């Protein structure tokens, strides 16, 4: 099996059958990371020894664990998800050297499924960013074009899968952080319904928006990993009782009679021509396979970005208060003995947080302050429910809503770093599914003339990831770009 063809389902089958040992798979994975990641910087930590030891454990239990759905599958975990005893930095200096004493629920579930965690992937600090340039540990490069960003905040996760450093990455999506880098790197990125996957052990950015999901090379892999991650967790009160869907029945998908809505009005301006072309080509392909494509109206979608940039920073300002230098993480050295605790807080947080995080903490603190709360936070929450109503109304007539994942392909490193507004506006198509909690997937939709990947996004009804995966499987199977690979060689 060539590394480029590696999929979770393929590896699992080979390991279960005894054709490959988990150790061999893991070693190849680590070799490839060693060979390639110096240029990409997808990983903040590679867990070589732990991964090999774990792979050997899997091999030792191969008989008993035969039915485990991710047997021997190497998985990269975004560095904002807790892995016991292994560094978990959230891309921040304030957590340099921090090793959590417990595993996130998703990590426990991956291990129970037989997976091998190979490392932690780079991200924008506390997932705040759309380019992975806001990592305290340096940017990640796009495997398709090393002078460009891989997207963010899960840039490392997307780059790792695109460059075949791991068949699966687990990441988080608060405003598009799985889907946008998936689009920019040409892989599949799934943000499940809010409440579908436990957030226990995810370092919170915006608690009402954060959701964990997979980045994979294939839709089939996304389905397999979602099944492992999904389901209620007694440690997360916001998980839904909804049992994990039985994905095995979904694939191969077909779209005969499936109604797909397109918010044409929202695509009228500000979208790159090549992005629109690719989007329309994907729609045409689905229509050819039997889908019914029609227009839908999402009148409040234009407010999604401003609403998002009030709600998310407000929650973040509170979620990040715990990084105060008292119990763990970075603590500023105080040379003045007379300096008190408030001084320690101020210095620790000034030194520990990067510019984007500080910007959002200040925005959020302001939005929650006495005298502004009603005008900003409360108002934003009201518009948020209007946006959700738009979607509910639209889903009365369609099974899924399609739009491009991003208005442009990946931009150059440094291009938007000093223009936060331009950076934020790039989230126009992704933030609304976080505000509404709806599931959404980004699927590869071909390449631009400059060979930069583009994403085709589908948004579904609550807990109806199945429809998204079914449509995605059709698109993937029949798309002319299915065998395109980034120019990264070991």
């Amino acid at each position: 099996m060539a590394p480029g063809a590696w999929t979770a389902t393929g590896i699992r089958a080979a390991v279960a059958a005894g054709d490959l040992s988990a150790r061999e798979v893991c070693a190849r994975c680590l070799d490839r990371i060693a060979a390639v990641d110096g240029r990409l910087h997808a990983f903040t930590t590679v867990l070589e020894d732990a991964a090999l030891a774990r792979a050997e454990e899997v091999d030792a239990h191969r008989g008993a664990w035969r039915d485990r759905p991710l047997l021997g599958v190497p998985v990269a975990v975004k560095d904002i998800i807790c892995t016991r005893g292994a560094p978990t930095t959230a891309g921040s200096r304030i957590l340099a050297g921090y090793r959590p004493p417990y595993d996130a629920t998703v990590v426990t579930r991956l291990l129970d499924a037989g997976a091998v965690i190979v490392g932690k992937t780079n991200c924008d600090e506390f997932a705040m960013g759309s380019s992975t340039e806001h990592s305290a540990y340096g940017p990640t490069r796009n495997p398709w074009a090393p002078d460009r960003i891989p997207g963010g905040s899960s840039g490392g996760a997307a780059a790792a899968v695109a460059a075949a450093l791991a068949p699966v990455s687990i990441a988080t999506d608060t405003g598009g952080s799985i889907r946008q880098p998936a689009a920019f790197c040409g892989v599949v990125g799934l943000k499940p319904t809010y409440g579908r996957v436990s957030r226990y052990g995810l370092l919170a950015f915006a608690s009402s928006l954060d959701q964990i999901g997979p980045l994979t090379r294939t839709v089939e892999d996304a389905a397999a990993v979602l099944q492992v991650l999904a389901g209620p967790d007694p440690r997360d009160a916001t998980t839904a009782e909804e049992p994990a869907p039985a994905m095995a029945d979904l694939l191969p998908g077909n779209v005969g009679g499936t109604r797909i809505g397109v918010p044409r009005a929202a695509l009228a301006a500000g979208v790159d021509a090549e992005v629109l072309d690719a989007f329309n080509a994907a729609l045409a392909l689905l229509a050819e396979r039997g889908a019914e494509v029609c227009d839908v109206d999402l009148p409040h979608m234009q407010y999604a970005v401003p609403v998002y940039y009030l709600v998310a920073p407000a929650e973040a300002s509170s979620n990040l208060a715990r990084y105060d230098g008292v119990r763990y993480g970075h603590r500023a050295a105080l040379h003045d003995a007379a300096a008190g605790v408030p001084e320690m807080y101020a210095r620790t947080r000034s030194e520990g947080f990067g510019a984007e995080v500080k910007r959002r903490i200040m925005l959020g603190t302001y939005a929650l302050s006495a005298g502004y709360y009603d005008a900003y936070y409360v108002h934003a929450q009201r518009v948020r429910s209007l946006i959700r109503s738009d979607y509910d109304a639209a889903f009365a007539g369609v099974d899924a809503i399609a739009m491009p994942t991003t208005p442009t392909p990946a931009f150059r490193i440094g291009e938007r770093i000093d223009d936060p507004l331009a950076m934020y506006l790039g989230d126009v198509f992704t933030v609304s599914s976080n505000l509404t909690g709806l599931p959404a997937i980004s699927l590869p939709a071909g390449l631009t003339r400059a060979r930069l990947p583009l994403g085709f996004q589908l948004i579904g009804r609550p807990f109806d990831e199945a429809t998204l995966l079914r449509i995605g499987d059709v698109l993937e199977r029949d798309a002319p770009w299915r065998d395109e690979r980034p120019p990264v060689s070991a």
Partner: protein
Amino acid sequence: MELEPVIGLEIHAQLLTSTKIFCGCSTTFGAPPNTHVCPVCLGLPGALPVLNRRVVELAVRASLALGCDVQPVSLFARKNYFYPDLPKGYQISQYDQPLATDGRLQYESEGRQVDVRIIRVHLEEDAGKSLHEGFAGSGRATHLDFNRSGVPLIEIVTHPDLRSSAAAADFFSRLRTMFRALGVNDGNMEEGSLRCDANVSVRPAGAERLGVKVEVKNINSFRYLQHALDYEYERQTGVLRAGGAITQETRLWDVAGGRTLPMRSKEEAHDYRYFPEPDLPPLEVSAEWVAAIAESLPELPEARKQRLVSEFGIAERDAAWLAQSADATSYFEAAARAAGNAKAACNWIMGPVGRYLNEHGVEIGDLRVGPERLAELVALVEEGTISTSAGRSVFERMAQSGASARSVVESEGLAQIDDTDLLGAAVREVVDGNPDAVASYRGGKTGTLGFLVGQVMRRTGGKANPRTARAMLLDILGGGH
């Protein structure tokens, strides 16, 4: 111009659960520092709260007992502030949609009926504890103990309906009694499981408008509450009488100095930036659940008091005292039934029994004289076998030895002289020896009879049955009054 104090209370009560409000850590007091902790109550990155169902049950119990409406849906909110013993940088509390609202507590204080309206009862988590002494490096460094972090609390907020420090202290004390009876709080103020802040202002008596309020924190006993309120009343009236103005501020009760000290001014007040807690879904309490909890409530002190008055015909004040404790109430009920005389049983419990308990620091449940034994003693006194004063000493013996009343009376020879032959000599001697008193009685001063009875008692060493002696004296004196 008379100035009256206007007082409202905010009381924090720790709920008697075995585990914390949002995690499974133990709530046991006194464990070595940081041994009852986990990622959740330490606020480690990524940890999430999950609400303890038992906490809600106990809070609903307390709310129902305070006559509150339990809300079908309430919301948790984050109260944001930085403090080293607050591990998440926010406290999970409830804000604009609390668990329960609009209750009231009515009681008697200083002979007056007091009616205190409860604004709200809400749930929240406790913070950790800063330890400034007792460790190597103390003096240079503060140590933190997070065992208390995440311990469940309810906060009870009253309207400013209290008009005296005594009434406020009574409120606090009644709440404690009630919560103990309900099993929602252990009432242990030294361990901090019941704490009180007071809002106090003064205004011309009877005025409508409230004065500028001062919040006094750190009060952990009824006595301190009364002292702190008295101090604040004096301080504020002093300021006003001197032509000054009260500034809105938070003050701290200084136990050692017996005074309140400024803590922070209104300008320094925190902006807590409350917003709904996104990690916890709205708390839904169904009508069925509330009904089931209401069903399980024990009889509360107020209801118990009413019942004792109507069922046994005892005085309200006595009933109120008995009703404060379930043990005292059932002791009384058993004694009253066995003695067939509720008022006498009540007088004994309020008198000699209560005194004995106080002097010896014994709980009524641990008293060696059970209610049936007390009833026997009461009967011996009532039927005149022994005098009331002899009965008191018999009780002391019983309490110490555990013996029955009858055996103490017999072994001590305390039975009263009821025999008219035996008493006759003593009565005759008293009549002969006190001609003035006899004359005075015959002249119409009937009150002298008591003196003469007393003389007979004295001659018999207290063993005479006073009723018999009195009848015999009347015979001789020709009274028939």
